[in-house]
């Protein structure tokens, strides 16, 4: 079957297998920022924004994304400028191997888009579906705090 969806602002038409997952479709379309860690929704590495909400793309039938707007980590950059969350992750040392990073960033972007002033507890909860084995989460939580502060300040620089 054929579906049409918007990926990072660009309308895309794709032919999909009936049971195909959105994560596999996105990677087929070249969006390698969607990482595969478990294919079961347990690790969050595949997180993308689906109609503005962060979801495990490995748990979504590609068919269900027909007519939807998808944003992957690749879509956060604007004309070479990184999203404040991305800058904050770089500055705080919130990235080690980087495999969980795209999903983590997506979850953080979702959080800050609806809660610009989160408590530490709210940040932890927002990241709770993204597993990381390298960092221990300490600097990632701090990165989200830093990004929140930067975004409230009105600038896009960290």
């Amino acid at each position, binding site marked *: 079957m054929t579906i049409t969806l918007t990926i990072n602002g660009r309308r895309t038409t794709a032919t999909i297998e*009936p049971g195909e997952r959105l994560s596999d479709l996105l990677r087929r379309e070249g969006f390698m920022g969607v990482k595969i860690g478990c294919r079961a929704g347990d690790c969050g590495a595949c997180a993308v924004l689906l109609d503005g909400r962060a*979801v495990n793309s490995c*748990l979504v*039938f590609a068919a269900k994304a027909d007519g939807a707007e998808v944003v992957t980590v690749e879509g956060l950059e604007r004309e070479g400028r990184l999203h404040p969350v991305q800058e904050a992750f770089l500055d705080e040392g919130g990235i080690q191997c980087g495999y969980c990073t795209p999903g983590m960033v997506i979850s953080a972007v979702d*959080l800050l888009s609806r809660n610009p002033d989160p408590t530490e507890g709210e940040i932890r909860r927002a990241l709770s*579906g993204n597993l990381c084995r390298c960092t221990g989460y300490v600097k990632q939580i701090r990165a989200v705090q830093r990004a929140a502060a930067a975004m409230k300040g009105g600038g896009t620089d960290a």
Partner: protein
Amino acid sequence: MKPASVEEAWAALDERGRAAKPIGGGIDAVLYATPETTAVVDLSGVGLTYVREEDGLAIGATTTFTEIVESPLAREHLGGILIEVLEKVASPLQRNLGTIGGTLGSAHPWSDVIPLLLALDAALVVYDGRERRLPLTEYLAGRARGERPLITEVRLPAPPKASSCTFEGFSATGFDVAVLNCACFVALEAGRCAAVRIAVGGTPALAVRMPAVEKSLIGASLDEEAIDRAAALTGEAIDARDDRRATAAYRRVLACVGASRCLRRAVEKLGGTG
């Protein structure tokens, strides 16, 4: 396929029998796909996403957990217990996708939602050629017999004055299913227990009400002793078994502790013991 109405959806499901699955977010359809499933019926266009006031609360089956958590009406219900529980279920990524109808349709034994809804005396509006309303307990019983009507709405009755609901879940990590969970609803009248509903789940069986425990509390003053006795009875009464997560013996301990903490907090919320 993505039908535009409940009737259309049901027709598609009925025609295909076991070969078709209804989905909200589709999480469990993706995770537990079987070769016999050849069609998926996406209900998100059927108009079942809402939280309304209707003699209590009416929640459309395709409403996601995030949408419920963000609903001011849902927050008002019984001191926000729905928010308190639903904002911790699974992960935020799954809460953005998973629907209340979907979770009831899957009826996972570790579900936190089902014991909560049992304690809240939830009823479901279903459609299987005709629309009807039935208590959640009846739906679950029918489901165990293989019946799969289409869930369209969850109804929570308006709670009486002087009532509260609490929940206690035990799990290994923060993003984890319950080893055991417990939900309690308590209503007081003239300082005594006028109504009580206790549901325990993850035993590892699906959540059920605890009628013997409830009976022991009706009309009683909910003091320390009464709660301790009820908690002990809960621990004994659950259908506990060993599994990967815990032994039956330990689950009995958790059921006792869970019931104790739930009842105590429910009473505290109402301003102290009866």
